[in-house]
């Protein structure tokens, strides 16, 4: 499969040991069929990536944009051989009064609305983590998502002009070990 254009790649592969739902550290020497540790990836604009920056600079009040992307367990034609859970994380300063909604295709309601009810990290970024999504290893899976960013019309004052902000989407996946 032709690699898609990657923008801003990295993968967060945080695997933990624990009882119950356990996670194991995933190393390149483990039962990985590839040296590439990137397991689950965004497929955005046909590019496989672990993170991408949502282009929101031309958003103005009373406008919205939607960004479609996929999450796959296949990389360069290779699947993982473990079951995965993945989590989509949105980070933003949220200095613009945007409404940020994440939809999973096939699910009517947004699975996450990233707003200021979420907490900020030490870099003052608003961090919105989605719920964990499962991806089995035994076949290629592609989950379709849509990110909708809306600039509400009521924020049309001068103070909302020429604002600068960013929305960063990233994914983290974890090996799921069944008991």
């Amino acid at each position, binding site marked *: 499969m032709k690699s898609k254009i990657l923008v801003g790649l990295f993968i967060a592969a945080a695997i933990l040991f624990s009882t119950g739902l356990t996670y194991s550290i995933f190393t390149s020497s483990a039962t990985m069929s590839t040296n590439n540790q990137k397991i689950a990836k965004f497929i955005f604009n046909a590019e496989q990536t672990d993170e991408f920056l949502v282009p929101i600079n031309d958003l103005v009040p009373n406008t919205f944009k939607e960004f479609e992307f996929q999450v796959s367990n296949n990389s360069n034609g290779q699947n993982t051989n473990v079951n995965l859970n993945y989590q989509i994380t949105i980070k933003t*300063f949220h200095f613009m009064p*945007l409404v940020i909604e994440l939809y999973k295709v096939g699910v009517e309601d947004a699975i996450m609305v990233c707003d200021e009810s979420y907490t900020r990290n030490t870099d003052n970024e608003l961090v919105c983590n989605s719920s964990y999504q499962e991806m089995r290893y035994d076949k290629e899976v592609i989950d379709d998502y849509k990110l909708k960013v809306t600039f509400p019309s009521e924020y049309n004052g001068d103070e909302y002009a020429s*604002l*600068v902000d960013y929305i960063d989407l990233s994914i983290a996946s974890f090996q799921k070990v069944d008991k």
Partner: protein
Amino acid sequence: MEKRRFGKIWLCAAILVSVCLVAKLIPSMARVKNRVATEISTVWDGSVANSYRSGKGTKSDPYIIATGSELAYFGKMLEITNYSGTYFALSNDILLNEGIFSYDDGLKYTLNKSSFYLDSKTGNFYDTSDLSGVKIGTVNSFKTLKNFKGHFDGKSYTIYGAFINGENDEIGLFSNLEGNITDLYVTNASINEGNVTGLVTSAKNATLTNVVFNGVVIGKNEDRVLDKSIMLDDYIVDGSANILVDDAELRGFYGVRNLTLSGKCDADFLIDGENISCVSGQFETGLNPLKSNFEVASSVINNLLELKVNVSSVGNIAAGIVGYGENITLKNVVNKAFVKGNSEGAGLVGVAVNKLVISNSYNNGNVDTLGNHGALVGRVYSLSALSSINNSYNDGDDIGLVGMVVGSQDYLSITNSFDIVSNGNLIRDIQESVVNLNGVYGLQTNKYLDGVTTGNVVKISKAQLMSRDYLINNLHFSEFVDLEDTATNSNNVWIYEDGYLPILYVDDIKNPFVTLNLGNYSWNNLGFDDKKINFSSSVAFAINDANDTRPIKESYYYISKSAQPLTKTQIDAIDTWTKYDNIVSISEDGFYVLYVKAYDYDGNEVIINSDVLVVDTFGSDVLITLGERKWSLFSEDLDSAFIDDNAKVEVSATDDLSGVKYVQYYVTDAKLNNDELDNLNWSNYEEAISIDKLGTYVIYVRVTDNALNETIINTDYIIYGGYTLNKVVVASEEIADASFQISSGSKLEYNFSYQDHHYFDDGDHHNVVFNRNVPNGTKLILMDNISKKVYSYIVSSDSLVIPFTSFSVLGKGNMYKNFQEKTGDIDKEDYTVVVDFSDTIKPSISDLTVSIDVRDKNAYVSRSTIKNTLKTLSVIENADANVTLRSTYVGDGIKYNVDSLELIDLSLGLQNVTNEFGIIRDSSILSKQMGIAIKLVNKDGVTIDKSNMRNIEFKIDGEYYSPDSDGVTRIKIGDASASVSKTLMVLTSASNATLSAGEYYLSVTPILAYDGMYGGISTSENIVIPVIFDNALDNNETYSFKIESESDYRVLYKKDGVVSLNYEVISDNSIKNSNVRVMLYKKDKLTAYDQKYSLIDLNDYLVNPLNAVTANVYYALTDFSSGNKFSLNIDLARLEANGYEIVFALYDDSKKVGMIKEKFIVR
């Protein structure tokens, strides 16, 4: 309940036994008062007391001596002080030894009817005359009272049984006396073995009045030798001269005296006509020892040098009254003592020098002296002032009136005096003196052995000398009338008895034939003294023969019910005498003087009387007072009397009859039984009894009257306790002062507690108590901190006492329960009372106290709040606290029409109102907040409309504030309970600066209000800050201006560290003196919904700092001659991940002509 009598019966019995005993042993001390000891005197045990009985030593309050121990204490104190000007008095007979001293070829001591031989040196008495047998005992030896210079009043009491001996030169009751002695009886004295011995051994400038002395005076049986050398001046005798020896040098040399004169000379010479040989330039010769002035004659000029007089004497003095007296006066003095001396002896005065006055005195004693002697005076020597002996006589020994008169010129006069026993010379020898005799009588005409007199001794018979009429009319021995008369007619002192010489009224009756007997008392003559004898039971008297050989023919009595004896005139006027047949009883309490008129078979009539008898069968009236509470009876059923403050318990006692003798008290904390009362260690009551500690007290008082009736009363339980006001709190502050002030809108809390057992009866109720009316509407909150319940009450009347039961449970109104009183034992109470004036018509109240108490069903306070815990409150009108506003701002002002930031420090603090009494606390501050009100005003103080303030923002603590519709920006700062400091940031921007240039000010006013913003009133002055205009707005010109950046600097990364932001200025080239200024702003909040930015210091983040224009405003480009580009080397790592806005302003010199803003974020 009754007054408790204590031990009256056994005490009276003791008195009876003691009096009888005393009466048996003591010879009759009958005198004017003619009674036996009125109070039982205990024989002295030889001890020395620690103080006098009472008194301060003044004339009106003399030191009182009542016992031998106290007399000994007097002697001990005389070793330290001479008591000059101090007054003493006896209040009782002093019994120093109970046996009888006598002399019968040796000193004897009779005790309990047995006679023993007494060693005068040791005081031991033996069964054999050689003092070597069995020692029976030792008498009490009393020390001489030395050097007394005060006033001693015997008050007609007797010092009985004084045994005085020792190794001193002078042995007597007093020695070296320079004071006065009056009204003293010294009886049964034994004074032994001094060189000068007598009642008073030596006296100088002293007076003795009304003194009667009896006893034995034994002088030392060997002569004292005195030796002295007197240096004289040198004399040059050319013809004749007089050698004078100072008389003072020669005084004290009594007895046989020897004078010699020695010295250097040139030739023989004469002394008083006698030739003195000058051998080898020296001479020595004897002188007339009685002289002090010697005539020297020499035929040639004779230098008499180194003259020395040697004087020596051998002898001692024994006398009844005074041994050696210099300038002394004796009046109404009697000696009855036996005096035995060696060289000088006398009944009254042994040796008198300088001046002597004796009047109305006599000697009855025997004087046995080997040497010179006289009944009245042994030797009168060297008088230097007029001296006299008058109305005096000798009835003792055949020794004449006066022994010798020497060197006294004509100073001595003897008048109206006589000697009824001497057959010899009345004056034995007169040398260098002239004695004036006038009305001097004797059995013989012999007046003197040798000497000169004026007048003669008149020979007279004994019968005439014993004739009352003769003595009165010729010798002027005036008869005693009564004491009142004697006070004005001091010579009316003689009492006449038929067949007897007159005696002084202070002396004993010679031959009574009737006695008035009452119990253990006996009288046999007439007296006028008002001395009282107290009886605690009814009395009975009898009239008896005093003398079997002179029986009463008939007798009558008269009972005078008076506290004062009748005068002689009143006695003479009695016409209701009752014939006496049998014992007569008196049982009614009162004052009595018994008069008896009796006749013997010779028709002699005599009237005698008793002392004032006080029949007092009942005790004293005693009252214990504590405030309004009074107790006057003894009780075993004690109630409780509560006090809530320090108190003084006063005791008063009266006894109209015998008078109060002692008032004593005892304080305990419990009721006492009879045994305990009998054994109490009572304290003398001298001043009010203080109760100044919390506790329970029962006070017992015992009053003894002079009849020895005892009355005991007691108080109830006095319970000093109550609620304690633990603290008062106003506006969270606990008040430490006893008095304080609050504003009239305040409220305050009082906490009371009581921690002790108390039984609450049915009907007992608690109350909140005010001492002043509080206004209607005053809200009271009552918190029962034990049961954890809260009640409330609104004052609606003038009642000062508000029962707890008037309080209803808080919040539930009257339909629910009120405070419920409990009965039974309660050990602990704790209440908080809140008094809230905030809803009242703001009164002024002075000195208000708030307390709580408990009252019984009769409204009697059984427990109050302890007074010294209370605090006094004053409520002051119009004294609410206000807030003050201070600032140290010294900037130029607020720049209205430019982007600027001005920081203004503000300090707000609460300021209580004060008056001359101090701070006035305001509790309403607790519910108030401080704030500020900011206005933009013109020069006339008119507030600028808010529409002209769109470019101004106020910020405190990160919060922005805008004006209300009235143009006032109100900012709440904080609680009024504490001072606070804040920084007011005034941010202006050039945009929306719509106000035209003019004179404007920013006015900041402090507010104290419930919400910190509205409704409050502040009296503090405001802060006024000028508002200034930048010139840019004056110019409406605009210029094109653009900043181009080399890159898109909208998203920058900290990880990139130092980066160079490169810019190019694109502007209208017509601008001269252009400069570009740059400022950096940072987003205030991490949110999309607050787009405020605040100016920060760009230079903090630049590697190459820029030059500043003003605070946080920098020149980005000033010199366009080098081009329009500039760079900002910024260290992104220093910047916080946040949003920023960079502002570039183009200036034409100082005029802004354009501005560009660019936002960026740093990640």
